[in-house]
């Protein structure tokens, strides 16, 4: 899924981020660890809490690594679900917009 761009890597999220996807998502993110990451969540239709956990854990990890971790694109369901479960990703989005 990951395709190389000049400075930062990107990851397109699968449409369905459910229980089955959580492990796969973690593995994908682990593979990208250490580089700046732009996540494309525009195709996401459903997000489960498990995948949200993985995404947020990655955000923490990236932060600790002083790497940028942003959501370059996000679908409406993705944003709304995040909002619903009280997971604030606005700052991750906002930086992208500012850039």
């Amino acid at each position, binding site marked *: 899924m990951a395709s190389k761009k000049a400075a930062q890597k990107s990851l397109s999220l699968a449409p369905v981020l459910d229980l089955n996807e959580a492990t796969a998502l973690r593995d994908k993110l682990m593979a990208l660890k250490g580089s700046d990451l732009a996540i494309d969540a*525009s*195709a996401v239709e459903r*997000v489960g809490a*498990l995948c949200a956990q993985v995404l947020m854990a990655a955000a923490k990890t990236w932060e600790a690594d002083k790497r940028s971790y942003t959501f370059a694109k996000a679908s409406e369901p993705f944003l709304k679900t995040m909002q*619903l479960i*009280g997971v604030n990703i606005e700052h991750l989005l*906002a930086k992208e917009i500012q850039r």
Partner: protein
Amino acid sequence: MDMNEIKEIFFQECEEQLAELESGLLKLNDGDRDPETVNAVFRAVHSIKGGAGAFGLDDLVSFAHVFETTLDCVRSNKLDPNQDVLKVMLKSADVLADLTNAARDGGGVDEARSKQLIRELEALANGEMPAASEAPAAKPAPALVATPVADDEGFQPIPFSFDDFGGEEKPVEPFAPTCEILFHPKRELYAKGNEATLLLRDLSRIGEMSIRCDMDSLPPLEDMNPEEAYFSWKISIATEKGEDGVRTVFEFAEWDCDLEVRTVEEDHEAEAGKDELPMQPVPFDLSILDDGDDDATGEADEPAAPLSSANTAAESNVVPIAAASRAEPSRSEARAAPAVQQAAAAANPAASAASAAAAAPTIRVDLDRVDRLINLVGELVINQAMLSQSVIENDNTGVSSINMGLEELQQLTREIQDSVMAIRAQPVKPVFQRMSRIVREIADVTGKSVRLITEGENTEVDKTVIDKLAEPLTHMIRNAVDHGLEAPEKREALGKNPEGTVRLTAKHRSGRIVIELADDGGGINREKVRQKAIDNDLIAADANLSDEEIDNLIFHAGFSTADKISDISGRGVGMDVVKRSIQALGGRITISSKPGQGSVFTMSLPLTLAVLDGMVVTVAGQTLVVPLTAIVETLQPEASAIHSFGASQRLISIRNSFCPLVDVGRILNFRSTQADPVDGVALLVESEGGGQRALMVDAIQGQRQVVIKSLEANYTHVPGIAAATILGDGRVALILDVDAVVAASRGQSLKQEISLAATG
């Protein structure tokens, strides 16, 4: 309530959902782009899938799942619901109906067809997605610009504009108590296929909620177990449903999570304000997330034996019926009720307050009970008539208070009767909807493009009539498409819209329901019909027939104009069967056809089969009832107006035209010699095909409403007699089958079959 009963309710609801689905799709087909319509369609499929999952109806679930996925693309504007897409969807709705029926009644479905449709649906869902993926991503951008940059820890109060969500109403719940909830899912909750996001979504539906997600326990990515539960939530919700309502949401997950619910006195915003970490308000409209609900649940469930799911907590929130059933044994009644409500709310996710208010409360009643009631009211009417008659007979003092009381009683009984009849009255909508499927299928087979327009779907008529209407209507629709409409190329050559139109309308006309089926095809090819009739020895080669008479030939048994016999129509059992069914319902059917412009079939049916307005007459000492709808006028024949014709035929001259005089007593073998018309009364009746006949009876007793008692059910079919009734004096009176009598007067004898269907 045992499982079978629950299942039965599920199927009943399926029927409603399927109807909803179809009408929604048809609306979309007509260019309706209201998101609520799309949501309604989605909900319908969603509910069916949810229920089917609980009963382990795997075929149904898997098909509904694919269907739903595609519908979701429409809902999220990734897929434009154009005609081609809707064609597939309508077919899918048909297959879904088939699958539902198969699940209920056993039997198989056309697997090849459903597999093909699954492929088509999947293609639609996949094919359009990449192209449209930019669109949703662009949307949130403007909102983000205004968002202040939060520090990396998050948990900032977010200025949240509801405008972004497209004008949803925020329900005002001023006195709703506020609950504070601590929700900490365990690993098991996710492992069982439940989903915290869904629980939270359901929770957000019952009130205004603010939420804070506690992520402190979240380890770094490399140390985390992706299937462990780290998040926990603190929620503050203002809901009318209170603590119980909140617990209901978590009812089937509470063993798999730590849950604390308590009601707080203060306003929830004050409560939130006290919190060191402010909560995030939750957008009220979460309909966009609905897909997440069942898909996530459904998929998670599939590996984990859906059959057993009735006993697990896993998907309770998407299965209203099952939820209700499981709630009952374990909870008190009071708890069960909100459970049902909540489950229903979950099943109809996007149902706004408005749509909930629009639906009037209804109950389901066994038809038998209604019929028993109707029967009893019928007896009451008869009894009341008998009572008043005997009072009149024994009343020598003239006006008495008893008479006044009786009159009131009569009015009351009449009113009760009307109300009871109204219970049985149903809109013709379900039948009409079935027709749209027929049209689609026939159009497909014949390669014609047809548009079915229905009007007056809410016209109400007795349930029996509705049930019996489906078959003749199906025949007629098939005929209209197969024979009536021309092939698209031909239509184009004629300068018509290549898409043919079939219009089905229902309306009330003077106490009857009139159903019209009009096509804009070529009309009846009279030359062909005539030739065919001659070939089939139905008419003499030199017979001189009016256009109307030729048109009516198609109602003749064994008549079909199709050149080749297709499996759609053309077996020669079409229109005569139609006519018979309509007549058996006490109705009439007429055609009017214009060459090149199409044909109109008009059916006029009684609103109810239980009562009848009739004229009570005497014939040879017998009391008969003639349906009032058949009678045009009554007259006292004068000797000068009677003309003999042939050996025994007589005509009566009415306003310068001759009308055959039919002696009812002779036809029914009440007497062997003809009565003198001058001594009797002539009832001018409209017979099938438009001709008029004068029925001769001895005297008219009066006009009244009679309760129909089936002769077939209680005795046996009597030719020339439609049914029986009990009169006020307790005597049985026969109800005349006017058409049969008229037909018999044409020289055909009364036969046991109802094949007396006249040919005009």
